[in-house]
């Protein structure tokens, strides 16, 4: 990166932190620190909710996913708008009416203390580990691309978020979310326009869409039902609906964002805006990756996008083999570029036989390119069995560094840092709320607001230290990250089942739902261990089991009593 890019990056980071601290000065009550005094309007709620969900990995891996796999990942979000509507009808009025700080507080009022403790405990374990991964995942990519030490990158990412989250609490988090999210989206739009302008002369947006389609990248909808297929219309609409319902309705990192709304109306409007904007936004970010794919149809891509792995191969014992693969890859890329141009020319001149033949040769060139990549990945694995063999997260930043103008490069990196700070700060604030409200205040009731705020600040610092420590630990245990992600999806359905039982089954009591949650959790873990069912369905299975078993136990208890 050039000195101008470094200046843009560090100025932006300093502005984010200073803005957060400035907007939240004078917090002296727990109500202000954990819920921003419930004074936020719907625009702030909407941006805060969207910024919390869109972590740095979203902005790194989604364009990469578009490049590799096309638009199909968008189906993952189809259930989200429906979940927003249900939450507006159900959860928001209840949480506001009861004036709760956390979602789990409601469970004690509806059931009992043990159900609240179970849900809060599951959240603290799952979100505490996830906070470490939220820091680790972008730190890994940034450290490779910028040549930084990964440990210090984790400390920097965590340190930036913790400064304003500790001093200003929820208010600082909400206000910085608005600023950071606006910068992220502006940067993404600027990158999209510049990539479009970087296409070779004579290639129109229509031509770009056509060659992307020929490359299989416009596969936005798969209507065939297959429970083992991770992304299709049905898994997105049904499995995704339950996942989003659980995430937005029961995960304090989201509940804490919309409870900052000054009324039911403001919180509802914030969530509905998310329901309107989220799917088009994801489609746009995936399209950015598809556009990078189109760009690389005419400008040869690297054989592998992770520069550190490439350097290791080029200077290692298999250097000659790697160079031969690189050469083959470049020749195949040149052939594919020629066929892409031939396809476009034949399509324009309405030359049907010429078009058919160019399309066949394009597919062949594409297959040759894929073959050299597969062989490269095999070589990487042969040289180092523990090496990262997925380079999806490196696609976008590699493109940015190599092809975007000075100044915008620094801004894109600032956007990645901002996205990491967004999700980390919301996570830290939610972990703090749950620790203070669902644990500390139950053990040490009473106390004045000032003391509670200081306890919250200490809790934020402690969770930040834990997250950074876990991120450092995770950097030495690659497989643990996948495990942590799976752990999250294993619990969401059960927690959602507890909440939906609370909302919709008024006759079910605390003991019935507690036992049902335990049984459902065992069943979900059995599904994970013994079947190939895609993880999105665990949310539906866990939720349905809790509700059905709770109903049965409740009926049995009534009969026994009678």
């Amino acid at each position, binding site marked *: 990166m050039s000195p101008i890019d470094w200046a843009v990056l560090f100025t932006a980071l300093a502005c984010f932190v200073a803005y957060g601290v400035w907007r939240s000065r004078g917090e002296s009550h727990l109500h202000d620190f954990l819920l921003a005094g419930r004074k936020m309007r719907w625009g702030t709620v909407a941006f805060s909710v969207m910024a919390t969900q869109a972590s740095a990995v979203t902005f790194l891996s989604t364009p990469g996913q578009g490049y590799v796999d096309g638009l199909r990942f968008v189906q993952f979000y189809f259930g989200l708008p*429906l979940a927003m509507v249900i939450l507006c009808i159900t959860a928001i009025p209840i949480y506001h009416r009861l004036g709760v700080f956390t979602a789990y507080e409601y469970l004690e009022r509806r059931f009992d203390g043990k159900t609240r403790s179970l849900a809060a405990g599951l959240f603290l374990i799952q979100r505490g580990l996830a906070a470490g991964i939220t820091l680790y995942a972008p730190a890994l990519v940034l450290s490779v691309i910028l040549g930084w030490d990964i440990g210090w990158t984790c400390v920097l990412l965590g340190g930036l978020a913790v400064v304003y989250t500790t001093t200003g609490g929820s208010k600082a988090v909400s206000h910085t979310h608005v600023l950071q999210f606006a910068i992220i989206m502006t940067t993404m739009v600027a990158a999209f326009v510049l990539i479009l302008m970087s296409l070779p002369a004579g290639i129109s947006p229509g031509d770009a869409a056509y060659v992307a389609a020929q490359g299989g990248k416009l*596969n936005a909808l798969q*209507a065939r039902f297959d429970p083992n297929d991770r992304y299709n219309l049905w898994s997105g609409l049904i499995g995704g609906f339950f996942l989003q319902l659980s995430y937005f309705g029961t995960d304090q990192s989201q509940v804490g964002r919309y409870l900052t709304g000054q009324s*039911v109306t403001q919180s509802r409007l914030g969530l*509905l805006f998310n329901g309107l904007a989220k799917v088009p936004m994801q489609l746009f970010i995936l399209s950015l990756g598809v556009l990078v794919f189109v760009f690389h149809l005419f400008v040869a891509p690297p054989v592998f996008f992770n520069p550190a792995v490439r350097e290791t191969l080029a200077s290692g014992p298999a250097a000659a083999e790697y160079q031969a693969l690189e050469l083959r890859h470049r020749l195949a890329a040149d052939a594919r570029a020629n066929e892409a141009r031939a396809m476009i020319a034949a399509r324009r001149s309405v030359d049907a036989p010429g078009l058919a033949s160019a399309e066949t040769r394009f597919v062949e060139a594409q297959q040759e390119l894929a073959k050299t990549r597969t062989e490269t990945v095999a070589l990487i694995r042969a040289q180092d069995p523990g090496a990262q063999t997925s380079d999806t997260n490196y696609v976008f930043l590699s493109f940015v560094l190599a092809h975007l103008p000075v100044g915008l490069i620094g801004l894109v990196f600032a956007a990645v840092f901002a996205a990491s700070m967004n999700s980390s700060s919301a996570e830290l604030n939610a972990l703090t709320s749950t620790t203070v409200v669902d644990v500390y205040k139950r053990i040490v009731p009473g106390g004045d607001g000032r003391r509670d705020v200081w306890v919250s600040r200490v809790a934020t610092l402690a969770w930040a230290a834990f997250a950074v420590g876990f991120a450092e630990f995770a950097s030495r245990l690659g497989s643990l990250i996948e495990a942590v992600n799976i752990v999250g999806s294993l619990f969401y359905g059960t927690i959602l089942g507890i909440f939906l039982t609370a909302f919709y089954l008024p006759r079910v009591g605390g003991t019935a739902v507690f036992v049902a949650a335990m049984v459902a959790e065992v069943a979900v873990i059995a599904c994970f261990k013994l079947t190939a069912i895609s993880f999105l369905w665990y949310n539906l299975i866990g939720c349905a089991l809790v509700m059905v078993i709770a109903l049965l136990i409740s009926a049995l208890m009534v009969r026994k009593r009678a």
Partner: protein
Amino acid sequence: MKPVEEPPPFLGSWSALYAVVVIELLLVIVLCGWLSRWGR
């Protein structure tokens, strides 16, 4: 706190706003289907 059933500032009723969200989702799904079909 304001009343729970306060009408939204746009479109007059919450049901109408919910319908807008659902209709937009349907339109996006139709767009995705059209893109996939065009791409085949």
